[in-house]
């Protein structure tokens, strides 16, 4: 048949039949390399190493408690393996789509060797047993599974699982009682905060007494002037893999302390935009900072807190060991007597400003009631020794403590992760920032802890709160890469005038007495 065809084609195009014959011969020969097969595994790896995939695991295990390496971070493992995928299906044919996954040798062996089916089953069973032993640590077949009969009393009828209620909470209807003052429900201003780190444990914004808002965006720190709206880039870290993990202004507002992911604590002069000091004493990222006149306290991922005396060369003057996991909340009291620290180990420690008898710093109080990481820590400005703390996702409670007695004065379920708490002297209220599901700010009346109002707008969880020097505006930074300024504690003009008069009268009295 071939001859006939060849003969017929020869009269037409001479080249065609040669190509056809060549193809036929090519197909029949089995020792030529497969033209469009998949690359061998070593070839794939070589290709991969040349062009490393940059987007390995987008998922950040942000606020899972950072336990030991034994707990695998499930998504990163999965997405990692997905990216190292075998290349396209270009190689392979209809009958054997993927040569490399076919166990050719094994199949051949099984086909050709003589099998005695009777012998196979017991060995297989033994093999399975051996595997089961290895996996379970004991022979599961030999174990008996027992169950205590008589089911325990189920939850009462009508009890809806708490978690479902928590996460499907609709916006609460406005309270019927009049507030007594108007709080605008929309923010005064919205600022763009691109690349802000969506990490619960960091403290990335702070507002100075000179009315500058410092914001850390990845490895940059920007200063935003509230009065002029001007933006100054204060610093940029050299290595783009590092990032800023905390910022804190001194009381006077002329120096800014910056904590970084590579364990440095930097001190910057804002006027001259120059770095004054780079203090390295920590071994892990510095997520929290707090000033007490010339002492700067820094909390790190290791759980250690260092005191730095910024005036002297040997800056590291003390180490406080009280946390076993990252210190995310750190605040000196306003009178400088106590330092409150909150950690990812769910503990709140209250440290004295002076060392004890054993020349060691030991906490005067430790509060264990929170069931989640404590990042929100705030001292009451008008009542001494009163502290407010808020817990993370597993806890969701705001607690008010008396540090002198160690008693918990109040506890309120906020139904959502608490990232930050601030006190407001103007109206004797508290404001707290939250995450899932509403990403709202809640204002509470003190000491009743009644909800005054909720400020909504953020489309992702709130990360940090900070207050303006006049106490009228609260700035919130959130994972939706915005900063919102809420004018929620503005004093009305009459009260404002009275306050100003009162403070000026006080100062004039003082002037009179000093002769």
């Amino acid at each position, binding site marked *: 048949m071939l001859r006939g065809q060849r003969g017929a084609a020869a009269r037409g195009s001479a080249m065609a039949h040669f190509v056809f014959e060549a193809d036929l011969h090519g197909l029949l020969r089995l020792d030529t390399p497969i033209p469009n097969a998949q690359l061998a595994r070593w070839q794939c790896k070589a290709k991969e190493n040349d062009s490393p995939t940059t987007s390995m695991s987008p998922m950040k295990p942000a*606020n*899972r*408690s950072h*336990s*030991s390496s*034994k*707990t*695998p971070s*499930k998504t990163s493992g999965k997405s990692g393996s997905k990216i190292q995928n075998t290349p396209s299906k270009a190689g392979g044919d209809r009958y054997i789509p993927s040569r490399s996954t076919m166990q050719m040798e094994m199949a051949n062996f099984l086909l050709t060797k003589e099998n005695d089916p009777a012998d196979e089953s017991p060995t297989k069973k033994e093999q399975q047993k051996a595997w089961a032993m290895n996996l*379970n*640590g*004991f022979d*599961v077949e*030999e*174990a*008996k*599974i*027992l*169950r*205590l*009969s*008589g*089911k*325990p*009393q*189920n*939850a*009462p009828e009508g*009890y*809806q*699982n*708490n*978690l*479902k209620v928590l*996460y499907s909470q609709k916006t609460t209807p406005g309270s019927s009682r009049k507030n007594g003052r108007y709080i605008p429900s929309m923010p005064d201003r919205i600022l763009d905060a691109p690349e802000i780190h969506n990490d619960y444990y960091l403290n990335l914004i702070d507002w100075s007494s000179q009315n500058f808002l410092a914001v850390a965006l990845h490895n940059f720190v920007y200063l935003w002037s509230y009065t002029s709206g001007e933006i100054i880039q204060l610093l940029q870290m050299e290595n783009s893999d590092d990032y800023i993990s905390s910022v804190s202004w001194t009381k006077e507002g002329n120096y800014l302390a910056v904590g970084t992911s590579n364990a440095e604590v930097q001190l910057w002069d804002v006027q001259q935009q120059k770095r004054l000091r780079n203090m390295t004493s920590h071994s892990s990222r510095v997520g929290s900072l707090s000033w007490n006149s010339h002492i700067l306290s820094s909390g790190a991922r290791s759980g250690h807190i260092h005191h730095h005396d910024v005036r002297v060369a040997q800056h590291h003057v003390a180490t406080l060991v009280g946390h076993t996991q990252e210190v995310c909340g750190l605040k000196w009291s306003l009178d400088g007597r106590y330092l409150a620290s909150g950690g990812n*180990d*769910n503990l709140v420690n209250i440290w004295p400003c002076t060392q004890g008898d054993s020349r060691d710093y030991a906490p005067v109080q430790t509060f*264990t*009631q*929170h*069931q*989640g990481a404590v990042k929100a820590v705030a001292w009451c400005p008008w009542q001494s020794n009163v502290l407010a703390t808020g817990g*993370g*996702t*597993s806890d969701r409670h705001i607690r008010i403590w008396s540090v002198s007695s160690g008693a918990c004065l109040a506890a309120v379920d906020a139904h959502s992760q608490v990232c930050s708490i601030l006190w407001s002297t103007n109206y004797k209220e508290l404001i707290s920032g939250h995450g899932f599901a509403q990403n709202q700010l809640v204002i509470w009346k003190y000491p009743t802890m009644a909800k005054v109002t909720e400020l909504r707008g953020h489309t992702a969880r709130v990360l940090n709160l900070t207050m303006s020097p006049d106490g009228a505006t609260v700035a919130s930074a959130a994972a939706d890469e915005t900063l919102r300024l809420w004018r929620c504690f503005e004093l009305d003009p009459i009260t404002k005038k009275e306050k100003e008069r009162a403070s000026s009268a006080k100062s004039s009295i003082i002037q009179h007495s000093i002769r």
Partner: protein
Amino acid sequence: MAKQLGREQQGITLRGSAEIVAEFFSYGINSILYQRGIYPPETFTRVTKYGLTLLVTTDPELKNYLNNVVEQMKEWLDKCIVQRLVVVISSIENNEVLERWQFDIECDKTAKDESAPREKSQKAIQDEIRSVIRQITATVTFLPLLETTCAFDLLIYTDKDLAVPEKWEESGPQFIANSEEVRLRSFTTTIHKVNSMVSYKKDSFP
């Protein structure tokens, strides 16, 4: 008080280890029931244990049920014949298993014959237990929501030749069909080692 001090200095005996592990299960199961919302949170009260504030149930029937299990566990741990404790959380409506907390127990059988107690400080064991319980609390950040009302069940894997005591019955393992697993920390008293893990039903949408 004096007795406790004595125990701390003495080291860990088999009986002591069994008590420590059984106590851990009691508090661990209570924590799981509270955190996963199996019972209303108002029915739990706070106690201090392991240097933490833990929540335990006040419901008398549930307390009784758990006490029975813990007492039995103590006995079996002492004899080194229990291998695993599983807390199964299933939906009430369709009995589907949604979550499975598995605690594997490895027992050093040579401790049965030894007369001298082993060296390990109570504090070290407490620290390890504390980490595990904190991890259990923190799992709420990634475990899928339990949408429906759930009930729990306790399964214990024992040696095959054990006589089934009164009040207990045999049961299947109640595995989850399509599951995701997370291994938690383990702790050891040098006689008993407890490995913890939680498996949960994979979400239907990725």
